[in-house]
Each structure stands twice: as C-alpha cells, then as structure tokens.
C-alpha cells in the first residue's frame, strides 16, 4: 500500500501516461486536453458569435467524458491516496521559494501563497491566476495543442510541428520562472 500513497516514480507514471494515450488511439480517438476548452466555449454558445466555435463539438463528447473521469481521478488521488511524504522537491528549490515567500510543500500539491482560498481576497492574486489561464488557453489553441497533444502525442508520433511547439513551451516556461516570477512574487 505504501507504494500507492507515496509519490509515484517517474518511470511508472510516464509509462502509464503513455498507455493512456495509446488506449485512446485504440478507442479511435486522439489524446489532447486543451481541445476541451474549445468544446466548452461552444457548449456555452460561443458558436453563435464566433465562427471558430461553430463546429461539430458534439463529436467531442468522448473527450469531455475523459475530463470528467480525470476530475474524479484527481479527487480520489488527492483525498484518499496521498500522504505527507508527497511533493518532496529539491531542498534548494524550497529555499529559493522561501526567499520569495512561497511556503514549502510538506505534502501539499500547491503553495498556499498562490492557491489557498485567501487568494479570493487579493485582486493581485486573482489577476495572476486569470492571466495565467488566458495565456494557457490562448497559447494552446494558437499552437494547436498543449502538453498532451504536442509533447506526448505529437512527439511520440515524431511530428516536427510538435517539437517546435514543445521548444516554445520551454522557452516560455523558462522566461516565466527565471525572469518574470521573481518580479511579480
């Protein structure tokens, strides 16, 4: 049982994520999470105003089912399969974060400084989370996919466009972590 409660190793986790992608291929679909954002916009009626959302989104119901399952899986894993040994990140990383007033994980997935319910009392924190979301939504649709569609599916199918996108992901991520986060935190 300890094996389940502790952090899963990178090789087991990576292998299972690969299998998730392959099982969707076996079911005649393709692995990609960000396209659900487009589907949800269409579901909310965006297709009446913007052509991009006027498409056969009902054919994507299977992907919304994957999302529903993933949300449930996250709930079960967070509430029933976790313990305080989790998120044992590099002590050097913890030190760096403390210098920016970000609390250490101690088993938590997310720092309270950025994600506790107190953020709802801080306009700055709300703004940061919404802007982050806007960049994720806009960027993934512009690039035609996110980590699942490009980094996992695309690279394993040896797609050059996906390699370009993943290089972009890392350029953006490195700029954020090394140059922008120290300024805004």
């Amino acid at each position, binding site marked *: 049982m300890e094996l389940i409660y502790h952090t*899963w190793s990178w090789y087991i986790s990576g292998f299972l994520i690969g299998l998730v992608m392959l099982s969707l291929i076996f079911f005649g679909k393709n692995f990609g999470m960000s396209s659900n954002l487009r589907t949800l916009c269409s579901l909310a009626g965006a297709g009446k105003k913007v052509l991009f*959302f006027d498409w056969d989104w009902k054919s994507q119901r*299977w992907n919304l089912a994957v999302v529903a399952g*993933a949300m449930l899986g996250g709930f079960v894993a967070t509430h029933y399969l976790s313990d305080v040994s989790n998120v044992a990140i590099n002590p050097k990383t913890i030190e760096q974060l403390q210098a920016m007033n970000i609390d250490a994980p101690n088993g938590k997935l997310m720092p309270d400084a950025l994600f506790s319910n107190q953020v709802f009392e801080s306009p700055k924190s709300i703004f*940061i989370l919404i802007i982050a979301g806007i*960049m*994720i939504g806009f960027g993934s649709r512009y690039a035609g996919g996110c980590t699942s569609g490009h980094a996992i599916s695309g690279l394993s199918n040896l797609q050059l466009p996906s390699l370009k996108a993943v290089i972009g*992901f890392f350029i953006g991520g490195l700029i954020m972590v090394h140059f922008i986060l120290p300024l805004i935190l």
Partner: protein
Amino acid sequence: MKLIKFILVGFIFGIVLTKAEAVSWYRIYEMFQFQSFHMYGIIMVAVLTGLIGIQIIKKYNLKDFSGAPICIPDKEPATVRYIAGGIIFGLGWALAGSCPGPIFILVGSGFTSMILVLLGALIGTFIYGVFKDKLPH
C-alpha cells in the same frame, strides 16, 4: 454507455497525474529550475512508450477496437503558430504550474482557486477564436 470507457481512461489519467505530482505547481517550478529529473523522466518515458506503441501500430497496421484502421493525423506544417503559441502557452504553464489536463484535475480535486485559471483558459481560448484569422500562423 459508450462513454464509460472514456470516463475510465480519464479516471486513470487523473490518478496518475496526481500521484506523479505532474499537477503540482512545485514540480513545474522545480522542472524549469532544472533542479529535478522527475518531470523530465515522466515526459521521456511517456513519449518513449507512445513511440514504441505507435511504431507497432504502424508496422502491423493494427485496427482499433471497432475494427477500423487506426489513422493518426499528422500535425499541419507551420512554424510561427507553434513557436509563438508555444511560448505564450509556456508562460502560462509555468505561472499557473499547470497545463489544461491538470487544470481540470485540480478543479476536480477541490482546489477552488483553480476555477480562476480554468475561467482564464476559457477566455483565452475564446480570444483566440475571435482573432484567429488576424494572427500569423
């Protein structure tokens, strides 16, 4: 009923991403600081598993569960959209510490503040839809 298998695949995906801590803001920060191999290991093994699986599918022309030939569409060739979109995505990924899969997973896990990120992601997707034809691709 046909949707149950997809719910199940998603369920496993949600558990694995949470237990691998790939949904953790800390792990993403640590990855971009090059202070741990964990996330790189996950991505590499996932890609390697997928690569081997797809090669087997192509070599033996395997069929999907309904007996139809498996066809994995190629990504359309371009450069600007992948690099520019990729950089914008990466900025958001590192700031929120999560990509679209983990956003949904964390909302499901009960992190109320992630609803703000999800809301932003829907707005961002909508903005792309509005300006799609004016953007270089």
